[in-house]
């Protein structure tokens, strides 16, 4: 053998195994060598625990299975998979309970392997140790699915416990291992491929030590036709190479090996189980089907592995086959082996073949490493083990003619040179691995110098420590240390068993003294049995027992101490499992989903007579110079006190102190008004400036009205707020609001309504009432209205009293049977079969805000409906020149702000549309008018307009500057006005104004935005031209695109966010319907905000009101139940509280402790335990704070928790300001 080859040898220096009935090598070897088969029924206890979950899963599938019987496949199962010693792995009980049992099993097995290798604790910390795990999530239930079905809120906590990579990463984290840490997924070959990766990582120097592991648990081996994937044995028994083989039975368990470069392992005194000589990995390539195995590829794999190992294949005496025990797979595997051997030798039947799957079932991803361990043990123990469950060979395999034979009983393995074995693993997807192993011929061990030795044991819990002591006593009694250098045993425990918190030490001269010392030892003590007790040893032991590092004096000789076989860690398992609630049926309500319309109407409906005021009314009114409002108010006031301030004429200068009944529109003057309200305790402030007749005829008049009326209301409201006024703010207008289609109105003045609605949302001490009158309203009716305590938007027309009402509009869906209209399904395609009638062949359509997301969506919808349209897109920022498009597109949306819109425009062109993008600011009337004139001159007629331009409002009125207010109002309000004016002479077929939910149910901060949108609604309502369909759409947030998404406010609020297809369908249906206004949005009755609908001064139609009432009650019920559930859960928690010498704890401390115990699962907590040290993070903090708040009925949020952090501090602050914190919101 060449020196070059020797340098690539890898030593297997540690092994961990955890199989049914086998938690150490000796037990595993007993199963192998005796040919035992572990197949048995699924453990009854596990079956019982799962049954309700299985029934739940069956009951909640689309086609429920009602059969209450739950049957499980037989297989090779672990007795339990819930037990785990979380303390060893730095987890808290709750975390552990939500962690995938695969991860827990892999961790404990890999840890034991590292112990076996003599590398844990200080010796491992910071080392360049790699962790390689073979794992894949398999079809069927995962533990995360299971946990989240029980409580979706656990998903966050369960995250790191269920992400596959954490199986490797957590071990690296806990032990501070700095080498590569990863999970390999190649299905059934995964852990053997991981061995290959680890070997390569060691050889290229990525790490100096590697642990490779795999774990397999069958979560719920339920018998159900759909859970079989065809490779599992029907009776759970694996009969590899046998004629009756019908697949592998389920197997559970884990295996792990620790690898090191051979030369270093020898130098370090490691105990070497076997040597990996070489390995190979390949793929079947293109086979008939992706899951079909291929003997050619398998033969190539073996040849490659042998080349890598540099061994003569004839010297291989045992092959651990993949051995899936399928009628197809076994002959293919045999054939691959036969062909490969045939390349080197014609000798028959010199190599034994077996498969541990026949003993322990198929462990899927972990089967490779478990097979490797078996192959290592055959050379280590120099024994050829039998193949279990083998009776008659598969007739497709002619063993007699080939190199292989099947051993049916264990026999000693005679060989001339070092014994060699191989192990194969094949992945379902075609990734194959093979590893070649060789017996390690250990040199003779030089004896150690006699003398006292320090023997240490440690454990994470006292229970583990006492069990370890018993285990070592038994180990000694069974001769476990016979033939072992005593110094080596002591060295081994010191480097691999000394890192835990609970410790004991014995100083002894030899095994007998150690036994005696262990028998009388106790935690935290040094039992000194040494005949010549060594002061240095005592010092080292004492400092270590006190929690320090273990730093024993060097041995008396220069001999390298060795790692020897010793018992592994005794885990102190507790049940870490989330139990499925047995009463799930009672909690499960699969109520039919109630459907609600996606469109609503906002309209004026007759209202009953107003109620009389309950308190005296004192009115202060602001009127215009013309006197109409003054007259009306004076007549209406009757016996109520009324003071009227008149707007100073433009010509007149600011009112002097001598002119107290005049005001102007500047802030100082309106501040004086506010002061007047305070000084004289007016109860009503009447803004009665909107008294013009008919719509503005030109932009100048529009501007004048907006400034005089809307902006004055803005300034007045601001002044009233700044002065802390509490009053009713009445906006009295004359025919600003169309109460029926085509009513001639001074529509500009309607904008004040939107603003008025926002005032009261931002500042509840100003209730707002809008009263829109005509000349025929009797003075008494107006008087009654003004002093009525009921707020909202009212229109008085003669004797009639009307109120703004929000109602359902279900019939829109039925207006056009030819199209799906407002179907609410997500997959709904807006394009119908026939192009909509409102789009003319070859028509020219204008979209403002045309390069915004909504504008482009509309343009696309039009272009898809008809391929011959001209689309004019008005845009504030325009498009880059055409020649730059390729560069912009190449840059992509992340690097060029225009890329998305350029692509969208290109798509419009591709759809056949002619597209013109015009750069025009819709908020600039002059520019917009010029553009319109030019477009009309060019195209002759614009056939339809969609006014989608707009900017959002974003500041409360108190902090809003007039210029910013205007900037939001103008693109919508002035823009709409100019579009309307510009097309007076040649009306388009339709004008669609994009209004907003804010016009009806505005949020604080939307004063300007709501005002402008209310105008759009009124403009549509006032349209009297029956040839031009003017339509206002009050959009709720679009879910997928647009302003709400950009500003992060999308999603479901009082209303459900609109999908783009649904929104376009609504627009389409509304355009076909002929309605002038449609509120486009579905009330989110299932949401937590639905109660807000009732908090607006908008009347709800009976059908809406009834649903809101039901929904609010349901939401309250949910909240109450949730709070009760939390309280019940926390009440049921028992936790031992420590930290105060007298043991006296306040009720608040006890409750807080229970809340934390509930969150983390600890059985005991100290008053001073820190939230973060317990395993908390800022994400958990929210739920823990919520729990504390619910249980103690106090206001306590994340910020409080993050500041306080310990039970003592939390309780102190709650107790000291407890009353203060009482939940004022409830």
């Amino acid at each position, binding site marked *: 053998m060449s020196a070059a080859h020797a340098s690539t040898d890898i030593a297997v220096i540690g092994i961990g195994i955890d199989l049914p009935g086998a938690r150490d090598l000796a037990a595993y070897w007993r199963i192998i060598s005796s040919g035992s088969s572990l197949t048995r029924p699924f453990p009854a206890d596990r079956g019982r625990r799962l049954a309700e979950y299985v029934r739940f899963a069956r009951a909640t599938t689309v086609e429920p299975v009602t059969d209450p019987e739950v049957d499980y496949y037989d297989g090779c199962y672990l007795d339990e998979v819930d037990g785990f010693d979380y303390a060893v792995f730095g987890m808290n009980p709750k975390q552990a309970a939500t962690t995938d049992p695969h991860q827990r099993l892999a961790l404990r097995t890999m840890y034991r392997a590292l112990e076996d290798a003599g590398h844990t604790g200080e010796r491992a910390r910071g080392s360049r140790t790699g962790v390689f795990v073979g794992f894949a999530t398999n079809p069927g239930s995962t533990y995360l699915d299971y946990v989240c079905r029980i409580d979706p809120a656990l998903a966050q906590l369960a995250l790191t416990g269920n992400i596959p990579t954490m199986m490797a990463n957590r071990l690296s984290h806990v032990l501070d291992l700095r080498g590569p840490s990863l999970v390999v997924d190649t299905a059934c070959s995964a852990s053997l491929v991981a061995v290959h990766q680890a070997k390569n990582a060691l050889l290229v120097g990525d790490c100096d030590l590697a642990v490779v592991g795999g774990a397999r648990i069958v979560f719920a081996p339920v018998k159900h036709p759909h859970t079989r994937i065809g490779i599992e044995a029907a009776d759970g028994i694996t009969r590899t190479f046998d004629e009756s083989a019908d697949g592998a039975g389920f197997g559970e368990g884990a295996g792990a090996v620790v690898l090191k470069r051979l030369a270093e392992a020898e130098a370090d005194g490691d105990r070497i189980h076997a040597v990996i000589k070489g390995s190979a990995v390949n793929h079947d390539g293109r086979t008939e089907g992706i899951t079909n195995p291929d003997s050619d590829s398998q033969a190539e794999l073996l040849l490659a592995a042998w080349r890598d190992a540099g061994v003569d294949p004839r010297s291989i005496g045992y092959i651990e086959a993949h051995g899936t025990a399928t009628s197809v797979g076994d002959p293919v595997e045999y054939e691959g082996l036969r062909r490969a051997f045939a390349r080197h030798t014609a000798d028959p039947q010199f190599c034994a073949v077996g498969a541990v799957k026949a003993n322990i079932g198929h462990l899927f991803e972990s089967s490779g490493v478990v097979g490797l361990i078996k192959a290592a043990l055959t050379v280590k123990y120099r024994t050829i083990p039998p193949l279990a469950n083998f009776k008659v060979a598969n007739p497709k395999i002619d063993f007699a003619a080939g190199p292989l034979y099947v051993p049916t009983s264990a026999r000693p393995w005679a060989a001339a040179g070092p014994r060699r074995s191989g192990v194969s693993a094949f992945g379902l997807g075609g990734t194959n691995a093979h590893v070649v192993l060789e017996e390690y011929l250990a040199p003779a061990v030089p004896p150690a110098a006699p003398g006292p030795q320090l023997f240490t044991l440690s454990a994470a819990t006292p229970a583990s420590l006492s069990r370890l002591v018993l285990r070592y006593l038994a180990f000694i009694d069974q001769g476990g240390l016979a033939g072992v250098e005593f110094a080596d045993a002591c060295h081994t425990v010191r480097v691999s068993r000394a890192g835990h918190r609970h410790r004991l030490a014995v100083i002894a001269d030899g095994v007998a003294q150690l036994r005696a010392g262990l028998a009388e030892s106790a935690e935290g003590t040094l039992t000194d049995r040494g005949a010549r007790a060594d002061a240095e040893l005592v010092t080292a032991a004492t400092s270590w027992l006190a929690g320090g590092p273990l730093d024993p004096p060097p041995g008396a000789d220069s001999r390298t101490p060795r790692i020897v076989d010793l018992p592994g860690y005794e885990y102190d398992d507790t049940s870490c499992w989330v139990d499925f609630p047995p009463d799930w049926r009672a909690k499960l309500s699969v109520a039919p989903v109630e459907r609600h319309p996606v469109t609503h109407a906002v309209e004026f409906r007759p209202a009953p007579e107003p109620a009389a005021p309950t308190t005296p009314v004192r009115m202060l009114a602001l009127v215009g110079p013309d006197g109409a409002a003054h007259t009306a108010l004076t007549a209406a006031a009757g016996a109520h006190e009324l003071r009227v301030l008149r707007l100073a004429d433009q010509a007149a200068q600011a009112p002097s102190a001598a002119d107290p009944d005049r005001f102007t529109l500047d802030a100082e003057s309106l501040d004086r008004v506010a002061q007047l309200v305070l000084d004289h305790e007016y109860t009503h402030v009447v803004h009665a400036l909107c008294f013009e007749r008919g719509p503005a005829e030109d932009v100048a008049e529009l501007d004048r009205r907006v400034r005089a009326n809307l902006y004055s209301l803005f300034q007045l409201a601001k002044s009233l*707020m*700044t*002065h*802390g*006024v*509490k009053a009713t703010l009445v906006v009295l207008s004359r025919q600003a609001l169309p109460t029926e289609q085509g009513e001639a109105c001074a529509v500009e003045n309607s904008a004040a309504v939107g603003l008025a609605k926002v005032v009261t*949302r*931002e*500042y*509840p*001490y100003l209730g707002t009432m809008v009263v829109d009158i005509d000349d025929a309203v009797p003075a008494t009716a107006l008087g009654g209205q003004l002093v009525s305590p009921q707020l909202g938007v009212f229109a008085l027309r003669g004797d009639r009293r009307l109120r703004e009402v929000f109602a359902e509009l279900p019939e829109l869906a039925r207006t056009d049977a030819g199209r799906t209209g407002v179907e609410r399904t997500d997959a709904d395609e807006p394009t119908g079969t026939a192009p909509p009638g409102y789009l003319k062949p070859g028509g020219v359509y204008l979209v403002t805000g045309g390069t915004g997301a909504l504008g482009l969506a509309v343009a696309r919808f039009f272009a898809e409906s008809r391929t011959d349209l001209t689309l004019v897109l008005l845009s504030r920022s325009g498009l880059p020149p055409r020649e730059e498009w390729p560069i912009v597109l190449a840059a992509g949306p992340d690097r060029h702000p225009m890329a998305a819109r350029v692509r969208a425009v290109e798509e419009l062109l591709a759809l056949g549309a002619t597209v013109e993008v015009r750069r025009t600011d819709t908020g600039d009337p002059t520019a917009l008018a010029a553009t319109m004139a030019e477009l009309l001159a060019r195209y002759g007629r614009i056939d339809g307009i969609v006014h989608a331009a707009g900017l959002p409002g974003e500041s*409360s009125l*108190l*902090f809003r500057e007039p210029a910013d207010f205007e900037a939001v109002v103008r693109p919508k309000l002035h823009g709409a006005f100019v579009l309307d004016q510009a097309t007076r002479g040649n009306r388009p077929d339709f004008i669609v104004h994009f209004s907003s939910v804010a016009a009806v149910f505005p949020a*604080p901060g939307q004063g300007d935005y709501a005002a402008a949108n209310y105008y759009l609604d009124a403009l549509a309502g006032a349209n009297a031209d029956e040839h031009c369909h003017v339509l206002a759409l009050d959009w709720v947030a679009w879910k997928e695109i647009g302003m709400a998404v950009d500003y992060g406010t999308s999603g479901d609020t009082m209303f459900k966010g609109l999908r783009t297809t649904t929104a376009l369908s609504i627009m389409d249906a509304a355009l076909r319907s002929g309605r002038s206004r449609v509120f486009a949005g579905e009330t989110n009755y299932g949401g937590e905000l639905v109660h807000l609908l009732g908090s607006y001064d908008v009347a709800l139609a009976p059908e809406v009101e009834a649903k809101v009432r039901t929904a609010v009650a349901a939401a309250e019920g949910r909240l109450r139940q949730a709070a009760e559930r939390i309280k019940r859960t926390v009440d049921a928690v028992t936790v031992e509280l420590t930290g105060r010498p007298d043991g006296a704890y306040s009720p608040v401390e006890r409750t807080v402790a229970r809340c934390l115990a509930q969150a983390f699962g600890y059985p005991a907590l100290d008053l001073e335990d820190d939230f973060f040290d317990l395993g908390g993070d800022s994400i958990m903090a929210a739920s823990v704070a919520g729990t504390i708040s619910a249980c103690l009925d106090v*206001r306590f949020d994340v*910020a*409080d928790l993050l500041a306080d952090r310990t039970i003592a501090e939390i309780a*102190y*602050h709650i107790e*000291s*300001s407890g*009353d*203060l*914190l*009482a*939940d*004022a*919101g409830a």
Partner: protein
Amino acid sequence: MHCLLFPGQGVQRRGMGAGLFEEFGELTAAANAVLGYSVEELCLRDEQRRLRDTRYAQPAVFFVNALLGRKLLAERPGAYDRLAGHSLGEYNALVLAGCLDLLDALVLVRRRAELMAQVTGGGMAAVVGVPGVLVERALRETQLSKVYIANRNADLQTTIAGDSAELLVATKAMATLPGARVVRVNVSGPFHTPLMEPVEAALAELLRGCAFTAGQLPVHSSVTGELFDPADAVDLLSRQVSTPVEWIRTVRGLRAAGVSRFDEVNGRTLLPLTEGIR
């Protein structure tokens, strides 16, 4: 212009000032002598949890503020053109400005804390998310006689304080305001309200015994928002305990004076407030 800000009571945390006490060994020893206990032990370990107590919290915050300010100025001489402090922090501003001796101020602060701690049965709460005018209106609406505005901290943060029982009622009312969040403030009394008036005379007496000099750096008063004239020190600092902290006004005053950048010692409490002031 740059301004350095000093926070007041409320920023105390176990572990504050770590490393400083060794660096300023002599000063720390002198402070220990003045206080009669180890300020280092109080700030770093505080096993008896005395930082919860106003009597200890104020000297601790003041002393750590002072060391931090001194260190900062030593590292960057001339970096600051103005100084200001929030409530207790105002003493730090005056000390660093050179108007008041550090150890004299420590004596003063200790006495101030003792006096303030004598007024019990009250508390404070911050109302966040709504304009101050709305808080004031809502407070008037409650018709409570013993709850007051205590700090005007930022456009959307106002602190109210007063009698414990009445404060409970007031916070409930505040929580119903649109967008409002009510956050507890961990202090023992109704600071910066007329309920503190009993302290004023004694404090004025102490202040009169102190020498206030002109100083090298201008300080803005948290009572008036205007420049602090050392000649008015007795009046301004004694009034300070029973009148609202006018932080909005202070920041606006500083900005009007040309301050464009603010720094803060001992955490980040005032900077977010300052950013929240138009």
